[in-house]
C-alpha cells in the first residue's frame, strides 16, 4: 500500500481475546496512511468495534486483551501508551452506542473533549463554536443534561466532543447510527473537510457501506474476526460480491426491501 514512513496507524496481525477464552480477532492487519480515510466494513459481530478498541487501548477495561501482534500509532507501540497518552498524541475514538456523560450538560460534554489541550481558553472557545456550527441542533440544546437529549443529539454530542481534542486521527465507530439522513451527509462532509483541510486521518467502522466507500480511500472487509478483502475504495465498490452484499445493487438497480423474498444464503468468504 504505502511506505512505512507515511503510515499513521498500522495494525499487524493482532489477536484479541475477551475474558481469557473468547477469541474475537484472529489475525487482523490493517494500515491507515497519513491523511487517509480507511473504512472498516463487516457484518454485526465481525469485530470492527473490537479492532477500534484495540487501537485506542480501551480493551482491558472490558476484560479483553491483545494477545498477539502489534499496533503502531505514529511509529509507537500502542500497548505502551495509556488511552490518555494516545489522545494527547492525537488519536481519539468515538465510541459506538452514544456514550455521552449523562449528568453533564451538552456543552460540558463537548468541553471534556478538550481536556488534553494546552493551547488556551480562546482556542478552545473557538473550536466550541466550530462544533456548534457543524451541529446547530447542539447549540439549541447546549444547556440540557445530555442524559435527557434524544439519541441523535447524543450522537452528535459525542462526535463533537471528539473533534474538540484536535486529533491527528479519529477512530469513528458507526458515526451515522441514528442520525437523520441529512445529518449523515453532513458528518461525512465534516470528515472530508477535516481530512482535506487539516490532514486528519480516519479509521471508520461503518455499516452504511455506500457512504463509507464513497468517502474512503481504502476499505477493509472484516468477517468473523478476519480481514477477508481489502483494497482501494473504488475497487471494492466495483467488486460484484461487495455490490450485492454490502451495497444492495444487484445488476444495477436497487431492490426494494419489500421484494426481499427469502432469507438469503449469505455468502461468506471464509469461515
Amino acid at each position, binding site marked *: 500500500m504505502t511506505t512505512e514512513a507515511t503510515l499513521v496507524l498500522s495494525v499487524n496481525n493482532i489477536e484479541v481475546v475477551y475474558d481469557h477464552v473468547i477469541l474475537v480477532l484472529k489475525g487482523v492487519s490493517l494500515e491507515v496512511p497519513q491523511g487517509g480515510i480507511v473504512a472498516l466494513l463487516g*457484518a*454485526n*459481530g465481525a469485530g470492527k468495534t473490537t479492532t477500534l478498541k484495540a487501537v485506542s487501548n480501551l480493551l482491558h477495561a472490558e476484560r479483553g486483551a491483545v494477545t498477539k501482534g502489534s499496533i503502531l500509532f505514529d511509529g509507537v507501540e500502542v500497548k505502551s501508551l495509556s488511552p490518555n497518552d494516545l489522545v494527547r498524541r492525537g488519536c481519539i475514538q468515538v465510541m459506538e*452506542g452514544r456514550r455521552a456523560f449523562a449528568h453533564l450538560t451538552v456543552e460540558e460534554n463537548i468541553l471534556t473533549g478538550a481536556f488534553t489541550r494546552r493551547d488556551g481558553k480562546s482556542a478552545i472557545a473557538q473550536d466550541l463554536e466550530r462544533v456548534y456550527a457543524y451541529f446547530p441542533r447542539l447549540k439549541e*440544546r447546549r444547556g440540557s443534561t445530555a442524559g435527557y437529549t*434524544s*439519541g441523535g443529539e447524543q450522537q452528535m454530542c459525542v462526535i463533537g466532543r471528539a473533534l474538540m481534542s484536535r486529533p491527528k486521527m479519529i477512530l469513528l465507530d458507526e458515526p451515522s447510527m441514528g442520525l437523520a439522513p441529512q445529518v449523515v451527509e453532513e458528518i461525512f462532509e465534516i470528515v472530508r473537510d477535516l481530512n482535506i483541510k487539516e490532514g486528519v486521518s480516519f479509521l471508520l467502522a461503518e*455499516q452504511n457501506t455506500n457512504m463509507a466507500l464513497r468517502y474512503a480511500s481504502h476499505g477493509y472487509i472484516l468477517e468473523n474476526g478476519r480481514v477477508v478483502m481489502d483494497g482501494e475504495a473504488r475497487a471494492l465498490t466495483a467488486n460484484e460480491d461487495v455490490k450485492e452484499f454490502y451495497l444492495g445493487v444487484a445488476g444495477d438497480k436497487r431492490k426494494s*426491501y419489500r421484494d426481499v423474498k427469502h432469507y438469503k444464503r449469505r455468502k461468506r468468504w471464509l469461515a
Partner: protein
Amino acid sequence: MRAPDADDILLQVERVALSFGGVKALRDVSFNIRKGEIRAIIGPNGAGKTSMLNVINGFYRPNHGAITFKGRTRAKMQPFEAARGGIARTFQNVALFKGMSALDNIMAGRTLKVRCGVFWQLLRFGPALAEEVEHRRKVEEIIDFLEIEAIRKVPVGRLPYGLQKRVELGRALAMEPDLLLLDEPMAGMNLEEKEDMSRFIMDVNNHFGTTIALIEHDMAVVMDLSDRVAVLDHGVKIADGTPDEVKRSQTVIDAYLGIVH
C-alpha cells in the same frame, strides 16, 4: 395478505403535548394507527419521535391530550397497562437485560402469559414444568424465526450491537403483541442485515397480523415498508400520508430529507 382496514383504528393519539422544562418535545400531535398496518414515524433528530412512543406506552405522561387504544380513551397510559393491553416495543438505545442470556431475555417477554403461581414455580413440577416447557417452545419458535439459535445461551451483554437489536425484537415478539413499537430497529446494521430485518418485520406483520409503528432514519426502508408515514419536526406533525405523498411534500424535504429519495 395484509389488509389494513381504513376504519379499524387501533390507536388514536389526540392533541398530545409534552414538554420538559422549556423543551417542547411534542406540541399537540394527533395521529392514528390502523389495525394491521405498518406505520412509520420519521423526522429530524430531536423531533420527538421517541417521545411519542414513550407517550404511547406510558413511560412519559403527556401534559395534555388523549390516547385511545382499542376503543378506550385515557389521558395517559400506565406502562403496565400498556403491556397488558398488547403494546410491545424495542428501544433506541438497546434496553436488554444485560446479565441474562438471549434465551432468558426472550423468555422474560412472556411474563404476562405465565399462569402458574409462585408456589408451583417453587416446586417446578407438574403444571409449572409443563407451562415452562410450553413457553420455551414458543420462544424457540421465535428464536428460529429470528435465526439466533447459535447465541441462545450467550449473555446478551457480550453480543454485538446488531444481534442485540434482534434479541430485543424477539423479546417484544414473545409478548405476542397487538401493537409493536420499533424505535430505529435497523440502526447500526448493514444492508444485508437490514434486508433480513425488513423481512422479519413484514413477516410479523403478515403472519401474526401485528400492527407496527416504526421509527427509522433509513428512508429506503421506511418508504419500502410502510403503509403510511407521519413526519414530526420540533414536536409538530408536519406531514402524514402514504410514502409517496410524504416523499414529495416540500415541507418534509426542507425539514428532513434534504434531497428527494
